[in-house]
């Protein structure tokens, strides 16, 4: 089966180009363009890019299937142009044994419409005391190891886990935050926090967490990815660590790129995130760091929460927001605002995350899997949270105007948008 995508704006993050042209796909892979096609798709000048690889998606299965299942997360990913979701192990129970990991893979393979790659916990029960069976878990298919938003405070445990992970060739993903300074914080400290009377954390807590982890990387040489860098204070340290040749990369969540602390306004709990939203200056500096490539990866940090856990006083409400479906349209705000061009955006959304995990997707090159997203960057839509495919509706973009719409998502050359609508 040969499919020809013609008349498409091809967004190639690897080459950094955007050109009008065509792309040939055969049996699920991108191939050389020559020869006849069995099917031709006229893209009508819209954008065709590598499908998004989203690191750090919370699917609430096992444990809280009412918040998100693999089936609903898969549908949301398709709607959002995401072809690979890399799932977090902070479920109930944690994904910290080969047995629980196999459960995730089994569920994902039958239920999810997109590729699912699971991560496993770095320490048992994410408790920060004993490392997990990193070797077995890798054999079982774990692509990275992370305790998610919990910081391993015991530096001895953490350094041993990093050393062991390095010997296995495993990637460790960490959350940089000084846990004691940030204890109990609901927002970033400053004028807004003081006005609202909410407990705040200094942005310096992120820098302190990063400094510690960089020292441990110098010690252990492990491969390390920071889930989210959200403050300008942390950037010089990250830059130095990269210049010194450490195997370190950094990501940022979409909400920290598109919203700031003032969006919390009158205690809107859908804007409660971890780490909390930052100042506008921080947001702009971090956006700039994505443009220069200092920050490598943009993620959705998709975190489903039910209504009950959000309909509480701000301090008591749960953190996190769903974002699989809004990741691309929200990220396009950065393009429309002139901060990034489309190849730069897809470098952070697809190429870099795939490369960091050693995947062959995330590119438009011959031989890469035909995981693609066809989208119109200009179509506008007013978001209605109740129309989201996610089971949880906790998006901060409810009622917001978004510019950019996914037309179709292809996984292995198969149009999943179509097959989901049919079903």
């Amino acid at each position, binding site marked *: 089966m040969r499919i020809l995508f013609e008349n498409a704006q091809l967004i190639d993050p690897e080459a950094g180009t955007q050109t009008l042209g065509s792309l040939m796909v055969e049996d699920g892979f991108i191939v050389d363009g020559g020869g006849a096609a069995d099917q031709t798709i006229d893209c009508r000048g819209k954008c065709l890019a590598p499908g998004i690889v989203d690191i750090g998606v919370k699917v609430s299965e096992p444990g809280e299937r009412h918040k998100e299942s693999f089936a609903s997360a898969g549908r949301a990913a398709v709607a959002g142009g995401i072809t690979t979701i890399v799932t977090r192990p902070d479920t109930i129970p944690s994904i910290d044994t080969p047995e629980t990991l196999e459960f995730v893979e089994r569920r994902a393979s039958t239920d999810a419409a997109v590729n699912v790659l699971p991560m496993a916990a770095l320490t048992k029960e994410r408790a920060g005391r004993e490392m997990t069976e990193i070797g077995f878990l890798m054999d079982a298919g774990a692509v990275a190891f992370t305790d998610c938003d919990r910081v391993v405070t015991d530096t001895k445990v953490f350094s041993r886990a990093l050393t062991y992970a390095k010997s296995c060739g495993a990637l460790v993903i960490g959350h940089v935050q000084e846990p004691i300074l940030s204890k109990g914080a609901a927002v970033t400290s400053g004028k807004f926090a003081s006005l609202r*009377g909410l407990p705040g954390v200094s942005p310096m807590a992120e820098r302190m967490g990063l400094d510690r982890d960089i020292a441990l990387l110098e010690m252990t040489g492990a491969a390390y990815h920071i889930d989210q860098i959200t403050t300008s204070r942390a950037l010089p340290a990250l830059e130095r660590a990269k210049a010194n040749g450490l195997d370190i990369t950094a990501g940022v969540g979409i909400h920290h790129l598109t919203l700031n602390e003032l969006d919390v306004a009158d205690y809107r709990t859908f804007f409660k995130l971890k780490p909390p939203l930052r100042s506008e200056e921080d947001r702009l500096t971090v956006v700039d760091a994505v443009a220069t490539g200092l920050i490598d990866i943009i993620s959705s940090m998709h975190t489903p929460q039910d209504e009950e856990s959000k309909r509480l006083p701000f301090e008591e409400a749960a953190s996190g927001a769903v974002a699989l479906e809004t990741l691309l349209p929200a990220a396009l705000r950065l393009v429309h605002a002139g901060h990034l061009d489309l190849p730069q955006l897809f470098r952070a959304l697809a190429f870099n995350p795939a490369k960091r995990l050693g995947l062959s997707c995330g590119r438009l090159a011959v031989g890469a899997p035909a995981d693609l997203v066809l989208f119109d960057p200009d179509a506008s839509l007013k978001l209605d949270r109740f129309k989201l495919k996610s089971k949880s509706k906790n998006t901060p973009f409810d009622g917001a105007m978004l510019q950019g719409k996914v037309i179709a998502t292809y996984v292995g050359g198969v149009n999943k948008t179509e097959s989901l609508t049919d079903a």
Partner: protein
Amino acid sequence: MAFRASHLLGIEHLHPTEITTLLDLADRYAEDNRLGRPHRDVLEGLTQINMFFENSTRTQASFEIAGKRLGADVMNMAMQASSIKKGETLIDTALSLNAMRPDLLVVRHPNSGAVDLLAQKVNCAVLNAGDGKHEHPTQALLDALTIRRAKGRLHRLSIAICGDVAHSRVARSNIMLLGKMENRVRLVGPPTLLPSGIEHFGVEVFHDMREGLKDVDVVMMLRLQKERMDGGFIPSEREYFHRYGLDAEKLSYAKDDAIVMHPGPMNRGVEIDGTIADDINRSVIQEQVEMGVAVRMAAMDLLARNLRAKRGAKAAGVMV
């Protein structure tokens, strides 16, 4: 412009003329209270529920007396003892109460923003009696009334707010109110007890008590919570009193006719010397308590008028 709000959640969203309207009415109630003239027709037939999720003796009593003087049927609910212990969420509690059709709901809650949240879910007028570290509007209004009566005006005064500003909702509401009425506000305290970003509040910040009190018209002391005293935010009680406690010597830096205020309850010998607190020439602390009732009467009166107007319009089928 009259008083338009349907709830009293904070000072932040009040217009200066609304503040003046409320204080003018409170002034009249204060006089009538002294003359022993109740106005039992004002809230007649209305139900007032005091819902306190946090311990309070004086604020709750003040709201209760205010409601009773205006003829409301007042009910007190001690929320620590009831449904919260059974795991009911704040919103469910609010919805159940709302179904009983109260007219005025007075709420105190330990979480900032909790009263706003509750106000979104009920059809009655909500009065914030203190939410977390956010606002305590009736305290700021009663302080304003006390200042206005003592000083003859509520503008172009120099006012020092001293002590634990970081944990104080009273301080936040006062900073906003006094700023809106065009006064110069100074904050005095150790940096560990001042909130972050305070330099953006349109206030002057002092870490030295004597400098901070120099030539002020009003000295407003704040209560220091016991649990913050030992080593956490300040080294000790005695060092705090030495550096930031109000005594005659420090007060001498203020204007000769400066008044001394305290929202209560006082820690004598911690933030304020007992003799200053009792000095009838300087201290207006008892007057503050008295004005508390008058301000709360005025607030409930105005909110009830708006509530009745809204219900009347609804009954007549008019869109508002």
